[in-house]
């Protein structure tokens, strides 16, 4: 199942500050990676694609839906993994957190509970059911957010640096899981190895599409630019 992301002439501004400029993208591949420097606008793009915010100008459509308007459709079309799991988790226990999204999709309490246990078992974490989120480590919280979103089986998974802070085995395990994911992935990451098997890459720079196209080509150009930028000291510049 492949999702179609259509972005046309998109501008996005927060309180008068323009963050994304004239974005045009048409993506229909199953595995799409997004790269770019800190502050380039990747998370902002992720929130727009997921319909959490509406563009200031232009349109975003996923499989023909305007998700910022149609939140009911959004629940089955797209699931987003926030960059910071603390910002995503609503409920105090792991079980409640996973079951909540399922209930929001219209499942009854018992059904949601059953499916929640299924997902936990699938990840080999059945014993986490009653664990308090507050007692989990950062990496474990990441895992909880992933399970909560995957449980809802969205057609498109938007991943905003899902592996930040995960240890090597956990990351390998999640990568294996994501490879098997039946839906499409839009994966933001700073690690080129995460995207090796991907079809398409989008490179964002200072709120604009710098390059979009086949994985090998874009990654090559991106890495080259990053290494030469690394030589200079421009951390002090705040885009504004």
């Amino acid at each position: 199942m492949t999702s179609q992301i259509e972005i046309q002439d998109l501008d996005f501004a927060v309180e008068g500050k323009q963050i994304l400029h004239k974005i045009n993208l048409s993506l229909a591949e199953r595995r799409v990676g997004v790269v770019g420097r800190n502050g380039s606008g990747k998370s902002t793009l992720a929130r727009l694609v997921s319909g959490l915010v509406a563009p200031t100008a232009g349109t975003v459509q996923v499989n023909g839906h305007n998700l910022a308007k149609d939140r009911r459709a959004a629940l089955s079309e797209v699931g987003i993994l926030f960059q910071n799991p603390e910002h995503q988790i609503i409920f105090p226990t792991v079980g409640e957190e996973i079951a909540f999204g399922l209930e929001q999709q219209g499942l009854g309490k018992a059904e949601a509970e059953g499916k929640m246990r299924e997902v936990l078992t699938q990840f080999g974490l059945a014993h986490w059911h009653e664990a308090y989120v507050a007692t989990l480590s950062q990496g474990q919280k990441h895992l909880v957010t992933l399970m909560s979103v995957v449980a809802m089986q969205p057609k498109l998974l938007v991943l905003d640096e899902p592996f930040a802070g995960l240890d090597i085995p956990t990351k390998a395990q999640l990568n294996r899981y994501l490879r098997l994911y039946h839906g499409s992935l839009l994966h933001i990451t700073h690690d080129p190895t995460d995207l090796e098997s991907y079809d398409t890459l989008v490179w964002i720079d200072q709120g604009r599409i710098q390059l979009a196209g086949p994985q090998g080509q874009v990654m090559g150009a991106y890495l080259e630019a990053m290494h030469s930028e690394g030589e200079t000291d421009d951390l002090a510049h705040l885009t504004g």
Partner: protein
Amino acid sequence: MISLTSPVRTRAHRWPAGAKLAALAVATFVLFLVQDLLVLAVALGMTLGAYALPGGRFFRAGIVRLKVLWPFLAILGVWHIATATYAEGAEIILRLLTTVGLANLVTMTTALSEMITVIRWLATPLRRIGLNSRAMELAIALVIRILPKLIDNGQRLSDAWRARSPRRPGWRVVVPFTLLALDDADHLAEALRARGGFLEHTEN
């Protein structure tokens, strides 16, 4: 992200949330009728006894949560000493400690999702007349959820302050504390929106 949750699983976790809340309502009501200091003291003793039942860890966690009351108790104490109304002061302090203690006990042993179910049941008449009660259910649950988070924020801010200052954090953390609270509310709203927000589903 500390919540009013228990560090250990207790038997009371399995009792129905509705029954626990009803018992709490009755107990609170009765406590407001009682004026006898001895009876109130016994009630407080029994409440503390209930905290001790699941063991030391639960007891300590419960007492820590009651400690947030001390500024109120101090103000009450000062007032009643100043006005020489000792018996009344003792009565109010005992009652406050016992009712808040009991309420915390219920919160600590009840899952947030079960609270929502009870609120949903209470709101049945509202749905009958066509109102969306989902918003109310989630709003109440989120208040229960965010209060401890605010306490946690205060703790973290003062840690961050102390890591870089020899002096105690003062009024200067008030502004960051407020901003942090607003920020948290934003994130919570977005997390909720990511999973459908206040969608009302058909009865199930």
